[in-house]
């Protein structure tokens, strides 16, 4: 069928794979029967329960097909079955690494339908929590990426800081992973006394520790060699597949929803030039390779720290939630809100008919879209590279399957 576009295959099988510095490694052209290997659903490197059916010629991958749905939890059906507010805890659970961002996206979509303003302190707390959660999510992304590559220890170091972050969230909302903190119309609880200074202490320590991760993992020569020149996503490919987030910026496409379609307080933050958007430059290999994506994530953590500091600087006392009725009746209409999740554009498309229950509650999961590029990246890679490529897409299976 000619409906799919074909790209120039990045590596032809007889020519061998290009290596850094112009070296070229040649595979001996002995053809044997291809082997089909099932990677997953239970496999240490598939980030949960994804299954990749890999066709391999020895160690060389000739084709790969991701199979999803091992964690399909009917989130959209539930969105059409429970009340508006009752759906909020479920938004925590599809992207469980960035629950704050999910809460934010869903709340913003509903608020857009309601057409309400939310108090400024609530916005501050929302931004702060979302950025903190972005740090936590990237910590896991890079940590598990290191784990996939074989470096066990950085993962534990990163979890140590994440644990601290989770303790902070626990203090403000009472849960470690599934926060349900950002509610429709604001946030549901003001920060407890002393919490903001604890966040500041976290930022101070994190900046020191970040350097360690950077030296220990991102700049490690073996890590660089394992990830550079692997899984190269070109600009055209990125746009064609609709990639977003660090995947896009890893291919040096300057796009960040926080800056380009500002929501919440990001307008002001951008005006203050409080943060910048790291763009990959292909420093260690080809532009758009796995290392670039990992690097973008690592740099984004520091940018998030800057935003958190901006919020801590500007935050003022005030109310944290608007006047919201107990049973929400949302005016009819439909709205799509895309926010910058740690993994890319998290879109919520909600349709209301004026009742207590949504008509449609679509979640555009960034990892679902980002994962589609896998089929394109795999052929030509080695078996070990498949892990590096899957890891660099930073998927959360809860979100791909929803």
């Amino acid at each position, binding site marked *: 069928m000619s409906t799919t576009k074909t790209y120039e295959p990045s590596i032809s099988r007889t020519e061998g794979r290009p290596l850094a510095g112009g070296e070229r490694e040649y595979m001996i052209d002995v053809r044997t029967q291809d082997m089909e290997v099932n990677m997953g*659903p*239970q496999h240490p490197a598939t980030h949960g329960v994804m299954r990749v059916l890999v066709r391999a010629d020895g160690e060389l991958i000739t084709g790969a097909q991701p199979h999803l749905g*091992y964690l399909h939890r*009917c989130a959209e*059906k*539930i969105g059409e079955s429970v009340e508006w507010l009752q759906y909020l805890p479920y938004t925590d659970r599809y992207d469980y690494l960035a629950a704050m961002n999910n809460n934010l996206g869903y709340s913003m979509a509903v608020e857009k339908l309601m057409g309400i303003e939310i108090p400024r302190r609530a916005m501050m707390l929302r931004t702060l929590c979302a950025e903190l959660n972005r740090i936590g999510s990237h910590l896991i992304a890079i940590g598990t990426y290191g784990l996939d590559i074989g470096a066990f220890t950085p993962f534990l170091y990163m979890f*140590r800081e994440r644990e601290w972050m989770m303790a902070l969230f626990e203090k403000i909302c009472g849960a470690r*992973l*599934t926060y349900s903190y950002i509610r429709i119309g604001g946030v549901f609880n003001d920060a407890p006394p002393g919490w903001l200074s604890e966040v500041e202490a976290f930022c101070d320590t994190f900046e020191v520790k970040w350097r360690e991760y950077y030296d220990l993992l991102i700049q490690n020569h073996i890590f660089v060699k394992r990830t550079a020149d692997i899984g190269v996503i070109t600009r055209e490919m990125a746009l064609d597949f609709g990639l977003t987030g660090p995947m896009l910026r890893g291919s040096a496409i300057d796009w960040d929803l926080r800056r380009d379609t500002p929501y919440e307080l990001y307008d002001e933050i951008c005006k203050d030039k409080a943060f910048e958007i790291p763009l990959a430059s292909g420093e260690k290999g080809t532009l758009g390779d796995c290392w670039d994506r990992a690097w973008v994530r690592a740099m984004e953590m520091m940018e998030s720290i800057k935003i958190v500091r901006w919020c801590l600087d500007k935050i003022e006392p005030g109310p944290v939630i608007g006047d919201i009725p107990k049973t929400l009746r949302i005016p009819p209409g439909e709205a799509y809100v895309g926010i910058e999740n740690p993994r890319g554009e998290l879109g919520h498309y909600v349709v209301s008919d004026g009742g207590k229950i949504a008509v449609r509650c679509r979640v555009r999961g960034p990892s679902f879209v980002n994962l589609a590029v896998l089929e394109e990246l795999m052929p030509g890679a080695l078996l070990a590279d498949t892990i590096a490529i899957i890891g660099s897409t930073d998927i959360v299976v809860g979100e791909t399957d929803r």
Partner: protein
Amino acid sequence: MGLFEKQFEDNVLTTNVDWLLNWCRLSSIWPMTFGLACCAIEMMAVGCAHHDIDRFGAGAFRASPRQADLMIVAGTVNFKMAERIKRLYDQMPSPKYAIAMGACATGGGPYYKYGYTVVKGVDRVVPVDVYIAGCPPRPEALLEGLMKLQEKIQASSVIRKPIHTV
């Protein structure tokens, strides 16, 4: 071991041997690297520095079910995954244990009502030894569940005749 298994009457010697063997088993419960959903993150947290499940001798997460003793079902099980879970459980050599971590694995959890693909409790697929409530449970709760499992192992009989015959 097959020769000696569950053959002997209760006496001082067999009781002590049983105690020792059970102690060895409970001191080295190796879980399988097998995370499903949100609870898997808390399961990872248990392995990490703050909680450190390795203190109990249970920190050697094995990727292969053949070398694992414990399956921590950490997350929602749906129909597509249920068959795989059954297979993984069958691949583990006995004695093997399963912990249902969190509400989803225990009884469908938040997806009980509208989750059309969700298995309402992993015990419909594999036998479960210990259930842990929470969504997701704190890492400490998982440690608590592990200790509960250790109690259960300590009470089991290895070379003695089982007390309760079913």
